[in-house]
């Protein structure tokens, strides 16, 4: 029963993530709370990329754009004294969806290498836009004026509730992607990736479906950005740097493309590996680079392929 195996794997992993705060408290290592919250935030970003990359075949090399827009939405509102989380997150979702709509509408008309380069170039444009926003710190960025407050419910200044807030959003996003990829909409998206010519000749125009998926993914990554700026308490254009896009993409591949849980595993794998290497040497990237090459060359199925029932959806 591969399907049951997969469900069990996901539940077990989520249970592990839920157990991190008490374990970290027990071990007196609050650092792990921070690390795994970061892992989950990037898992949401990677999950959204996997939705269009793994299921939609759209190799977007500019996913950091939406991380940045989500972060700037929260940061700019906070700067102007709006700390209400509902308003901040609504703006983060709306703005990143809108930008994804514009970028997607142009990029999805192209394919292959053009698509990769164009998504990269648009993100670079937003990166420079961030740098030129002198009011909001320009090149150096700025401190977040205050973490989001969901009046009466939640205050992200408390580490523990913040952790479970991120956890809840991750679970919600996992469920959302699961429903999406198995719906009629998801079937068209996956069919268009599998065989575009066939899809067109049975009567689907892939473009609107792809664009809708692109917008959904952008909005989801915008949420990750809104969480990320609460995590770092600092806002910088570097959120949108192209290496960030590369990292998110690598998380998807490392974890296992076209699998539901893969992006979560990939985010955990990459960030824990980085943490480990940073402990060894300041020049950790000289080790990470070749590891990345080796993973691409020899471990295409990713971490999910190693787990029971973790393989690709049929």
């Amino acid at each position, binding site marked *: 029963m591969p399907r049951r195996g997969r469900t069990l794997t996901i539940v077990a992993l989520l249970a592990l993530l839920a157990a991190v705060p008490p374990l970290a408290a027990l071990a007196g290592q609050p650092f792990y709370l921070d690390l795994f919250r970061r892992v989950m935030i990037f898992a949401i970003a990677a999950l959204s990329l996997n939705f269009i*990359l793994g299921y939609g075949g759209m*190799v977007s*090399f500019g996913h950091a754009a939406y991380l940045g827009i989500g972060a700037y939405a929260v940061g700019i509102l906070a700067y102007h004294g709006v700390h209400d989380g509902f308003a901040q997150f609504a703006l983060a979702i709306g703005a990143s969806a809108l930008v994804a709509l514009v970028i997607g509408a*142009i990029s999805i*008309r*192209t394919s*292959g*290498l*053009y698509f*990769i*380069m*164009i998504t*990269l*170039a*648009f993100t*670079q*444009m937003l990166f*420079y*836009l961030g*740098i*030129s*926003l*002198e*009011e909001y710190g320009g090149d150096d960025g700025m401190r977040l004026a205050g973490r989001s407050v969901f009046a009466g419910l939640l205050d992200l200044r408390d580490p523990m509730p913040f952790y479970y807030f991120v956890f809840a959003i991750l679970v919600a996003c996992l469920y959302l992607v699961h429903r999406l990829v198995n719906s009629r909409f998801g079937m068209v998206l996956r069919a268009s990736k599998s065989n575009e010519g066939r899809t067109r000749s049975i009567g689907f125009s892939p473009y609107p479906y792809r664009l809708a998926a692109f917008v959904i993914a952008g909005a989801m990554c915008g949420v990750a950005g809104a969480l990320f700026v609460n995590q770092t308490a600092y806002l910088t254009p570097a959120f949108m740097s*192209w*290496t960030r896009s*590369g990292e998110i*993409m*690598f998380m998807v*591949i490392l974890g296992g493309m076209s699998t539901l849980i893969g992006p979560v595993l990939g985010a955990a794998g990459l960030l824990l590996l980085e943490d480990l290497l940073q402990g060894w040497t300041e*020049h*950790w*990237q*000289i080790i*990470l*680079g*070749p*590891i*990345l*090459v080796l993973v*691409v*060359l020899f471990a*295409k199925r990713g971490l999910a392929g190693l787990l029971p029932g973790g393989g690709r959806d049929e």
Partner: protein
Amino acid sequence: MNLVLLLEQALNGLQLGVMLFLMAAGLTLVFGIMNLVNLAHGSLYMVGAYLSVALFGLTGSYLLAVPLALLGTLAVGMIVELVALRTLYERDHLDQVLATFGLILFFNELVAILWGRAALYTTLPAWLTGQIEIVSGLNYPAYRAAIIAVGLAVALGLWYLVARTRLGMLIRAGASNRTMVAALGVNIRLLYTVVFGFGAALAGLAGLMAGPLYTVQPGMGEDILIEVFVVIVIGGIGSIRGALAGALIVGMVDTLGRAFLKPILGTVLSPTAAEAAGPALASMLIYLLMAAVLAVRPAGLFPARG
């Protein structure tokens, strides 16, 4: 607007354009022939810059350092092709992007270990530091003029190579029909290595010329790489002609935009608004241009293949 200033900025645009072309030519050749996306092309640019600085310091002779740095970049390019990229030709673009992304991390860190993370101070020989008078009233830096001359000469040489020589014939044939070239008995693997090394040397040339103008530091290749992507997308992937046209357009638009957009906006907007919007818009200009070109011609201005 001051005509001399306009001419000077146009020359700067041309200078940026030819540097972008040197980068774009190698990248687009490698894509056209080997069907490979090489993000690490910017790393080769960086290698060229660092080698020339190091070799100039070592030998004390700029005229010796430049060819040595070019040879060095060529060698690095060939080694990278043999060790890592060769296995990627048959893979999809996603794999190529990620693996060459890994190479970038490696190269940036390697350079940081060897030369440190701080920007390197570069010097030029005295005979390149002067000014030459282009027209009366316009003294233009000799070094930038030299870059323009070298860039145009390389563009001409490249055209000759591709259009008129046996190697060029193989390159053109290889771009359109790999199996046919193999059937001619040409060692295709060797051809690939040579072409890659050649593209690397062009990137190295751009990098070593860029050194004294911009900063020499780890990661210097990536900013220009993305601009080169814009060039290639505008020109049409795989087309040298497109690379040249795209490079000159992007070089001009970027340079003139940064120089004149703010004053132009100042005539319409309030000074503070122009102050804020000018630089922001100028830095986004080439990307907006790209979007506009794509909206009309999704395969670029000079699509390589019908």
